[in-house]
């Protein structure tokens, strides 16, 4: 798609972005806009809520109803937006730190509640904004500013976390797999109930630099060479899957009542005869 066609969704007067040249955040932003464009969503019926971090700065550049909130709290603010305006498509954008460490609690509860939000995790496996500290998705042994000799904690697998918390749409792509990314975001927005898209993206400035991939293309190559589809992964052993990025749709459960459906049911029950 011609990028020009997407400019109408952007606050161009806010450009240039704060992002480092080559940062994967721009790719995710474009994929999101392409999905919105394909779905023909009305700009003023879309709300995008973000937390704090490099990735969360996206809401400053998007010309929808947007809220740049607090570090870790985007899902909670978005829950309020959705309850007040159920007809809105409410999208949450945030980093792996934002959504899985400081805000991890809200993440699992939103999944459990199956509230109709789309959560796009800009998963660069590091705290980009504050200077490359390890995050809950930094793989073991990798380097970070807080792990100069290698990381000793076990990471979260965002997709598995979402699955086991009860999310009804879960998919993962990398920024290298752009077309998949557009498709997953599109499906996620259309899905009724909580949808989580885990996007593996490049913070070459910190994660890459600490781990031998200081150029964006090096991280892209890494994503290209180390991703396997979920279908392929099924036939692979645990050892073979080590250090691989499994991409694909992990769950798509349509028709399951979401929080708002249940809410409506109970409201009707309570109002019976009145």
């Amino acid at each position, binding site marked *: 798609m011609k990028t020009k066609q997407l400019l109408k969704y952007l606050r161009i007067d806010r450009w240039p972005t704060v992002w480092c040249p080559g940062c994967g955040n721009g790719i995710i932003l474009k994929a999101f806009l392409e999905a919105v464009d394909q779905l023909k969503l009305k700009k003023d019926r879309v709300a995008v809520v973000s937390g*704090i971090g490099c990735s969360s700065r996206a809401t400053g550049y998007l010309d929808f109803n947007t809220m*740049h*909130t*607090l*570090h*870790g709290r985007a899902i909670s603010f978005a829950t309020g937006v959705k309850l007040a305006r159920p007809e809105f498509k409410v999208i949450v954008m945030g980093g792996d730190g934002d959504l899985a*460490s*400081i805000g*991890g609690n809200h993440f699992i509860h939103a999944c459990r509640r199956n509230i109709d939000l789309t959560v796009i995790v800009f998963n660069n496996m590091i*705290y980009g*904004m*504050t*200077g490359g*500290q*390890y995050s*809950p998705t930094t793989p073991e042994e990798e380097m970070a*500013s*807080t792990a*100069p*000799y290698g990381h000793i904690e076990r990471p979260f697998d965002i997709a598995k976390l979402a699955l086991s918390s009860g999310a009804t749409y879960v998919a993962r792509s990398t920024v290298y797999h752009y077309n998949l990314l557009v498709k997953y975001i599109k499906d996620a927005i259309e899905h009724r109930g909580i949808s989580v898209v885990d996007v593996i993206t490049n913070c070459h400035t910190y994660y890459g630099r600490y781990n031998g991939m200081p150029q964006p293309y090096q991280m892209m190559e890494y994503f290209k060479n180390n991703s396997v589809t979920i279908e392929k992964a099924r036939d692979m052993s645990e050892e073979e899957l080590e250090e691989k990025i499994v991409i694909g749709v992990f769950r798509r459960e349509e028709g399951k009542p979401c929080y708002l459906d249940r809410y409506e049911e109970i409201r009707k029950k309570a109002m019976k005869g009145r």
Partner: protein
Amino acid sequence: MNNIDLKKARAVTGAEAVANAMRQIEPHVVAAYPITPQTPIVEYFAKFVSDGVVRTEMIPVESEHSAMSAVVGAAATGARAMTATSANGLALMHEVVYIAASSRLPIVMPVVNRALSGPINIHCDHSDAMAERDSGWVQFYAESNQEAYDLTILSLKLAEDESVRLPVMVSLDGFILSHGVEPVEFLPDEVVKEFIGEPKMIYPLLDTEHPVTYGPLDLYDYYFEHKRQQVEAMENAKKVFPKVAEEFYKVSGRKYDFVEPYKLDDAEYVMVALGSTNSTIKYVVDWMREEGFKVGALKVWMFRPFPKAQIQKYLNGRKGVVVLDRSASFGAEAPLYEAVKSALYNVAIRPQMGSYVYGLGGRDILPEHIRKAFEDALSGNLIADEQRYLGLRE
């Protein structure tokens, strides 16, 4: 201001100065979460840990709420435990900040002052620390990197004093001090070690012979008395601080007090402020004195407990007092102004008073702004019930 021997000093940022104070204190536990502009303190300290320079157990936890909780847990076992934060990090700690004070745990925490959201801003003002002013922590504000270093060390001794046993925040202005380079004279490691001594454990959790519980339900039967004890501990902090400052003077040659007078002897008009702005105020005092104006400054080092007696001593009988606040208290008077004004209620000769809010969200404060406030005072144009602003577009 204490003189610094430039031959002995090193040029460092405030963050590096504070991280070195932490290195010399060598706490048993440090738990932290990154936030601008605190980040470099923790980065320097993390390097000390990784390089084996300190034996501290360090954990980069998943939020400030967890950081302060971990520090409280560690301190309750009798360990020395520290963290550092800024702005929303401090706000997220809020409920645990109260737990630290009410559990009487002598935790020292550098707070790199940054404006509280929203909207989000990363630059300096005092809204973060001021939001904790009633939490039961002792609060210091540093004018320079040297002071941030000294006060961090000095605070540990004050916090651990048996009659005090209170946590202490050492505020240093975000970016201006934390990232600004200044000469700092470091004390030798042994001197710091000897100055702070071994931690005195009081009711440690790990003393299995004498098991204790922290934080059990405390209703209308005893809660009130426990709060009264916290009030008393703050009073004790006022009594103990001069002794600790004296001991620090003996080892460092640098004097600390509740407040610092600058050219006050014959001053008719005095400006009162916290933190790094005092340097600019002193510059303006010198400038105006060259022109023959009798102006002076009073820096407030310790904001909690509030040094009422010293404020009264230095400000009684002046013609005019101008108070500068780097935070607002929406719907009420700005915090420092309110405290100073209330302290002067009972003095024999009450000065004219004026409140000036400046520098929110990192807005620059210029010598001209400060001079303007002094000139208001000199021309008798101070209104005690009016809040004015410096460097604001209206």
